């Protein structure tokens, strides 16, 4: 399953403790429940008409105070030591500045390079210096079992060492406003040489891990209609479906020609979706916002050719 994906050392540390506590918990839960059921049946009024008045038993009392205490202390200790490991970044870790703001993430590397998704070379320690430009956010990578809050006027740090190539979700975990749930990004774990090529390459060095990201949405873009390929590679499908399922944004199915209420500069307006509207909606999403949806769509740069492919493709969805 995806969620058991242990993609970093920290994930192994966290899961180890989890399985320890989980095992104990299941054992105790079963024990208590079984005992309750057994007593209720065995000492029911019918089977056991006269109750015995037992006021207590000091030995038992001590036993079930000390056993849980000891177990809890082991849980604490295990949890704490593994956590300390997760917290102390090694000296040679590459420090990345993570900036959270309503509602996006940005990453800045030691040499000044910036990106919207986090690129990480595999098997190399990366230190995150997390801070926020406005309110409190939470920086969370589930596959790494890693989380640290982004707090304004304060820098919090954490680190990881990814162990598996791939692309993993970054989510914001502290409520930070309307689009809290859209404050997503990715960490893309790439081979070290690929990372270096980008990192030391000039301004326009291609971003690493392209293949990984596209593969995520669909195995082979070449098999897709060109419009859909664009939608896939630009990440539109994170928010729009092409089959009528509502997601963050409206579905693109049967969109063309539809009557719609949109908010233009604060006023509600009735429009018919035509080609001009679609182009505007994509190139300048904040200008008109569909009623009932958050103004959440990011502006995505597209070439004229890509744009017309997308529009043509949307038309075919009717």
């Amino acid at each position, binding site marked *: 399953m995806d*969620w058991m994906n242990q993609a970093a050392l920290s994930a192994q540390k966290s899961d180890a403790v989890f399985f320890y506590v989980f095992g104990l918990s299941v054992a105790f839960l079963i024990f208590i429940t079984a005992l309750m059921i057994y007593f209720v049946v065995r000492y029911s009024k019918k089977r056991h008409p006269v109750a015995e008045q037992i006021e207590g038993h000091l030995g038992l009392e001590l036993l079930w105070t000390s056993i849980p205490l000891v177990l809890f202390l082991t849980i604490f200790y295990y949890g704490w030591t593994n956590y300390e490991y997760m917290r102390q970044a090694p000296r040679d870790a590459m420090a990345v500045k993570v900036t959270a703001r309503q509602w996006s993430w940005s990453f800045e590397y030691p040499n000044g390079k910036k990106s919207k998704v986090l690129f990480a070379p595999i098997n190399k320690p990366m230190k995150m210096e997390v801070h926020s430009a406005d309110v409190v956010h939470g920086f969370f990578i589930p596959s790494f079992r890693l989380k640290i809050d982004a707090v304004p006027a304060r820098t919090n740090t954490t680190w990881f060492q990814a162990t598996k190539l791939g692309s993993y979700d970054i989510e914001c*975990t502290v*409520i930070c406003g309307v689009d809290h749930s859209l404050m997503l990004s990715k960490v893309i774990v790439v081979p070290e040489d690929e990372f270096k090529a980008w990192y030391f390459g000039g301004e326009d060095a291609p971003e690493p891990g392209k293949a990984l990201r596209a593969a995520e949405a669909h195995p082979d873009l070449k098999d897709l209609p060109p419009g859909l390929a664009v939608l896939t590679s630009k990440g539109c499908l994170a928010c729009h479906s092409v089959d009528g*399922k509502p997601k963050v944004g409206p579905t693109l199915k049967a969109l063309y020609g539809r009557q719609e209420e949109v908010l233009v500069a604060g006023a509600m307006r009735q429009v018919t979706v035509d080609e001009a509207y679609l182009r505007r909606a994509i190139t300048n999403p904040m200008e008109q916002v569909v009623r009932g949806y958050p103004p959440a769509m990011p502006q995505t740069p597209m070439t004229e050719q890509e744009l017309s492919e997308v529009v043509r493709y949307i038309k075919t969805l009717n």
Partner: protein
Amino acid sequence: MTTHAATAQPQPSYLVDTGSRKGLMAWLTTTDHKRIGVLYLYSMIAFFLVGMGIGFVMRLVQLTSFQHLITAQTYNALFTVHGVIMIFLFVIPGLPAIFGNFFLPILIGAKDVAFPRLNLASWYFFMAGAILAVLSLFTGGGAPDTGWSFYAPFSLKTGTNVSLAVFAAFILGFSSMLTGINFITTIHRLRAPGMKWFRMPLMCWALYSTSWIQLLATPIVAITLVLVILERFFGIGIFDPAKGGDPLLYQHLFWIYSHPAVYIMILPAMGAITEIIPTFAKRTIFGYGAIAFSSMAIAGVGSLVWAHHMFTSGMSSVANMVFSLLTMIVAVPSAIKVFNWVATLYKGSIDFQPPLLFALTFIFLFAIGGLTGVMQGALAINVHIHDTYFIVGHFHYVMFGGTGMGLFAALLYWFPKMFGKMYSKKAIYASWFPMFIGFNMLYFGMLILGMMGMPRRYYVHLPQFHTMHVVATVGSWFLVLGLLMFFGALLYALFKGGKAEDNPWGGVTLEWTIPSPPPLENFETIPTITHGPYHFEQESK
């Protein structure tokens, strides 16, 4: 002690108006602790249903196709309001205000609480707070959207009506403190002759320790909320990083109260369970001293663990260690209680009735809630599951499965005494099944979602979480069904139910020695107590 002092002309029950005022006015101006308890009962059930309705809608939103009906802004308002209602209007005041008010004086052999007028005032504060909370939804910049924890600086910046909501919580805190003062004084001053401390029913110990937390922790949140209001209106800058303030200070102050508050919620429920189990096992409680002591221990140590809500906030690593350690220690007294309850069933003569079923359900669900709590307290796990649905699952298990079920059990146990009517046991059993199944589908689903990495307070979720969300939502439908059946059965009993006996369960604490419903003055003559509370000897011989 099944026979109560039968007298020539029984006193009228507290439900009969005897004063100059009649009907609603008589209720709204009453200083009788029993009537005040009933006032709380009705108002709280109403808020509970509203809160639950919102919970239900949130589940629908996670079915994705319902997102047309509700915007992200509304969703944020929904969970905030759901949290505020459930916490401040339902689980915190729940058991103490309803059953504490109604039964504390009776259990210790008193005629009323120490300050009856203050008691009524508390109810008015409660209602005022509740009304303000509701008003905050429709006035100002719209319903607050910060979550019930009102984290600064977002709560300082958002345009929504945080100030009013926070002020409402302040008033509710006031109500809660006044009730605490009343209960402590009552227990110290009004115990019947011979009612020594260690002869009190354990419910009283639970209420006593709860009241102390109310006194020692609530003022902190009161001042914190005042600071939020001042900050919003005057910009005093204590929490606002732009002015040198510190958001972490807010979090500390908020949780200094709000963690102990979770023990305010659970202790009285534990107390009620401790009353129910001996009555149906027909035997004395196992380890009276241990249970009484653990209540006080939970209250004491429980005040010292607040920062386990802040493990990922960037606190110092020393603080992380200290608070994780203390969190583990506070789990011990809860464990002691669980084992003592189970041991009380041993060699009893168990009369299986609806209250017992709900009490055992409480133990089961609370154990799951507690055990997940321990997972959260372990640092290495917490960094993964903090602020995910795992937390949401945990606290619904403890608050709904624990306090909520505890309240239902208490209601089933004391309903015949309070209203003199008996409900249909079959209907209650029937409602249990959908409730239990739905509950676990819903909230266990949330635990799994959390492990998968689904953050809480999310309007939309990533596709990999969808399946579990559907499971949870379907669970919520079963749960609704069960709850509607449950409340339906009780409502029916209230109007059409058969008359209840004075002591339908064969209980031996003082409330079972007086008529159902109790007379205005509770006791003809104040009883003199000669032995501990769970004295079943005469019965079983």
